[in-house]
């Protein structure tokens, strides 16, 4: 849009004070496949990523995901809506800059030993 257009029609009281959430994805709302709430994502080491061509939001994700982090927690820490983070993660996955580890499907839920470990862990808290 032309910067010198007089009176931005859309910039009125109703537009609100913040950038619309999906602006950072260029309007893309298609959910990337995968990226469960508790899938863990890990990014490539910062020193091996060329950050220059990336959006600030992509960079923020890479920084937070230097250590494995669950998608829900990642979204909270970069302060973006879940759907937005999923689209951005899809970009990074496509670029080979993150890896995602999806949780086991419901059918393969934890065996008795793991459940017992959870109970013991909770008791020990």
């Amino acid at each position, binding site marked *: 849009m032309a910067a010198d257009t007089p009176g931005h029609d*859309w910039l009125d009281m109703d537009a609100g004070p913040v950038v*619309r*959430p*999906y602006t950072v994805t*260029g*309007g*893309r*709302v*298609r*959910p990337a496949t995968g990226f*469960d*709430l*508790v899938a*863990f994502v*890990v*990014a*490539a*080491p910062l020193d091996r990523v060329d950050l220059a061509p990336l959006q600030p939001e992509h960079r923020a994700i890479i920084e937070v995901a230097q*250590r*494995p982090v*669950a998608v*829900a*927690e990642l*979204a*909270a*820490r970069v302060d973006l*809506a*879940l*759907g*937005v983070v999923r689209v951005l993660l899809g970009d990074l996955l496509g670029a*080979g*800059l*993150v*890896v995602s*580890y999806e*949780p*086991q*499907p*419901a059918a393969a*839920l*934890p*065996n*008795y030993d*793991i*459940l*017992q*470990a*959870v*109970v013991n*862990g*909770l*008791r020990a*808290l």
Partner: protein
Amino acid sequence: MDSVRSERPGAGQRIPMALKILIAGGFGVGKTTLVGAVSEIRPLQTEEVLSSAGEDTDDVSGVEAKTTTTVAMDFGRITINEDLQVYLFGTPGQDRFWFLWDELAFGALGAVVLADTRRLADCFPSVDYFETRRTPFVVGVNCFDGKQLHSPASVRNALDLDPDVPVVLCDARDRQSGKDLLIALVEHVAKRRVVAA
């Protein structure tokens, strides 16, 4: 530990297994309080943007005209050990966000349904939902201010619960009480697994 230099991000890093537990119940019943009481981190919030956008929309046309609503989901985390983490998700209280429950419930280990005996009907939808989905759950009867207005047995009757569903008196503000609720749930899940096997 020496790690082989690899192009694959995350190579050599330990990836924990995450279990998901839902904290459900009516609006204002103490879901966020319970998450906060047992979580090792201050409860975090993640937002989902609701919009009428089609799944296949891939351009910006029309986006600016859409009305969006955000719904916040509170969650917390408990680290059991370096390979095992439990995530607790508070479900959105309002009925119009039911569709989000499906994502939350997908792959969940089980659920805690918090009940307030002064407004017992508020937890009916949660109980229905988990029964229909066959998601294991326990009912936590939140005793506000230590007041126990009804016995677990009467709550069980009022909710018409299956006999094997645990009903536990609790105080959502109390860490130990919250832990007991989660333990009751995981033991319930384990028991069902043994019976099913």
